[in-house]
């Protein structure tokens, strides 16, 4: 947020800088593992477990990782802390590898309709602003739909992102029917030959049945214009959220059929370790990660980089 003039060279640097803060804790476990190839004893394993828990990996996924590693230690496949460290890195990477998949705009669809859903304050609107920029740079004609008709000034917030990207925003007044806004937008995109439409929705907690039903309704209404629409439903997950993210993934998927994730706010000290549990229970591509509030603070998800940065030790 503060002006970072070093911006371009170090997008990942910024991510890692943030990660460095987590590494403060991770280093207690993982960092020490590197110190002079110590032998592996219980305290080493315990430290490792602590490190995983501290980054929201969760009890189940942590237990699983620890079991796997302990077995290899018992089988004498891992003889020192250095080997243990690289085995952990490999294991974590393997868990995330299937999620690395770029977002591809459905070319045959005119327009390709992408919904953004998630809990309140996750980063939906900001991600739309950033993604619009990317898609435009790739030569797409992009349009935004102000489907959040509930929150105060949500429409104006999206309109600002429209201006920044110099693209049209279809909007109605606050309190309007969200499904009808998105319907209008898709219809107008169809007639204008727009390539991609990014539809914002109001943040909602997944436990609220009626609000989840509202999402399903938007989907139903839009599919009347194009049976394939929405082509993508992106669930935006805040890196700071703990184990509740698993329930978010499940419930939003049940309501609207999530096709992929974006993890936001990875520039902070939270590390979204819960993604390992999500990778096991509801594996879907992580299209992007958000690493700041500026328009170019959106990066493809790279498990290699994600895990390396998590375990790195400068």
């Amino acid at each position, binding site marked *: 947020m503060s002006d970072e003039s070093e911006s371009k060279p170090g997008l990942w640097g910024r991510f890692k800088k943030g990660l460095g803060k987590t590494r403060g804790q991770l280093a207690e476990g993982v960092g020490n593992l590197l110190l002079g190839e110590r032998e592996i004893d219980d305290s080493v394993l315990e430290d490792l477990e602590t490190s995983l828990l501290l980054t929201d990996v969760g009890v189940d996924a942590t237990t699983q990782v620890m079991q796997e590693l302990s077995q290899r230690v018992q089988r004498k496949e891992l003889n020192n802390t250095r080997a243990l460290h690289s085995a952990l890195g490999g294991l974590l990477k393997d868990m995330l590898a299937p999620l690395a998949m770029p977002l591809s705009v459905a070319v045959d669809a005119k327009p390709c309709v992408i919904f953004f859903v998630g809990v309140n304050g996750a980063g939906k609107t900001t991600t739309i602003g950033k993604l619009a920029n990317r898609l435009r740079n790739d030569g797409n004609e992009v349009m935004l739909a102000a489907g959040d008709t509930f929150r105060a000034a949500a429409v104006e917030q999206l309109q600002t992102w429209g201006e920044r990207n110099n693209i049209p925003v279809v909007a109605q007044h606050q309190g309007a029917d969200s499904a009808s806004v998105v319907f209008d937008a898709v219809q107008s995109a169809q007639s204008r030959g727009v390539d991609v439409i990014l539809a914002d929705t109001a943040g909602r907690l997944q436990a609220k049945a009626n609000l989840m039903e509202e999402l399903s309704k938007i989907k139903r209404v839009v599919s009347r214009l194009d049976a394939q629409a929405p082509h993508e439903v992106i669930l935006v997950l805040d890196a700071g959220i703990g184990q509740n993210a698993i329930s978010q993934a499940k419930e939003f998927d049940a309501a609207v059929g999530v096709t992929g994730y974006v993890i936001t*706010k990875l520039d902070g000290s*939270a590390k979204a370790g819960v993604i390992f549990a999500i990778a096991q229970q509801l594996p879907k591509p992580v299209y992007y990660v958000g690493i700041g509030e500026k328009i170019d603070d959106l990066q493809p998800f790279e498990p290699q980089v994600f895990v390396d940065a998590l375990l790195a030790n400068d």
Partner: protein
Amino acid sequence: MFESLSDRLTQTFRGITGKARLSEENISEALRDVRVALLEADVALPVVKDFIEQVKTRAMGQVVSAALNPGEEFVKVVQEELIHVMGDSNDGLNLQVAPPAVILMAGLQGAGKTTTVAKLAKLLKERDRKKVAVVSADVYRPAAIKQLQTLAKEVDALFIESSADEKPIDIAKRAVQTAKTQFADVLIVDTAGRLAVDEAMMGEIRSLHDFLKPAETLFVVDAMTGQDAANTAKAFNDALALTGVILAKADGDARGGAALSVRAITGKPIKFMGMGEKIEALEAFYPDRLASRILGMGDVLSLIEEAERKVDKKKAQRLAKKISRGKKFDLEDFRDQLEQMSNMGGISSMLDKLPGMGQLPPAAQAQIDDGAFKKMAVIIDSMTIQERQFPDLISGSRKKRIALGSGTGIPEINRLLKQHKQMQKMMKKVSKKGGMQRMMRGMQGLPGMKGGPGR
């Protein structure tokens, strides 16, 4: 994942019933259960570790009361300790300074600060009859100022203009002046969300704090936050000397362990909980309610106690026997059940004690009003014995007669019959699993009980 900590603890203690004391060996496994439960509720690991130590010290040597088995006794210790750590309920706001008393909001991006400003303004206006002014020093997030302006209008608070071209510190200076000349009692200053690792932004809010010398500096934390709550709370508390915490978005299904982390790390009281997106959705903080929720078990113990005290044992046993023999749960039984529930202070007071139930939006709570149960009993009273035993007999003309007799309408009769069917289904499940406790928990599965209308 287990259904509740008490389930698991009961399991753990199964082998050691009869022992009169909780000892180091017999509680070590139980402590592990508690550790897992707290971690799954997103309590930060360092806080979990300290807490476990405290519970251990307290639990050891605790004599098990005759009424409870060691498992239940242990749950009680855990719960009491958790309530203790969480602090007293609702400290309120301390605004006893020369006006305008400034409230400074702080927290991460998207936590719920701006919404909470409006909620606080409404509360102070309506409850305390204060003249409240609000101002936004969020010059970064698009339309952040407009968002506050819209909300200020809604709660009819004095909105002090600001613009994204201004420096936050200049906005603050001007706002204090305006608040003074307008004779505002309270000035609430909204700020941009910021990451604790962003040194420039933390510097900015520190200088706001230095200038404003707020009566209250409130840290707004999202109830869904994970382990990072500890890092962030520490950083904000170090930078700003917080005076209190507000737990936003507590109306969801998150277990809310972040509240415990923040409380333990900062030592500052949790003052309110945000219970919805609407501006009236701000509630006092109750440590017992949150403790139960973190443990994922509701106030099960007191529910059991109350049930034991108030339920007509004979009738309950008769019903249990009947159901376990595979007999049908007829309208007569339904009527008894309704009566038992109102004996226990009504269903709403029971639901309050169950996990996730206290968070029902008001509209949904209105649906489970106790008066409706009395009405239902009256409807059943207007039926013949045959109808009560064989509800399928109740045809259109019979419905008309029953409606007339009970002073209700056909839709109400239909609703009752539907609810009876649902209850019957639930009873079938209960008879398989057995136990009052199960049944209580089963109620969470009642259709329409999860979430509900409203935001």
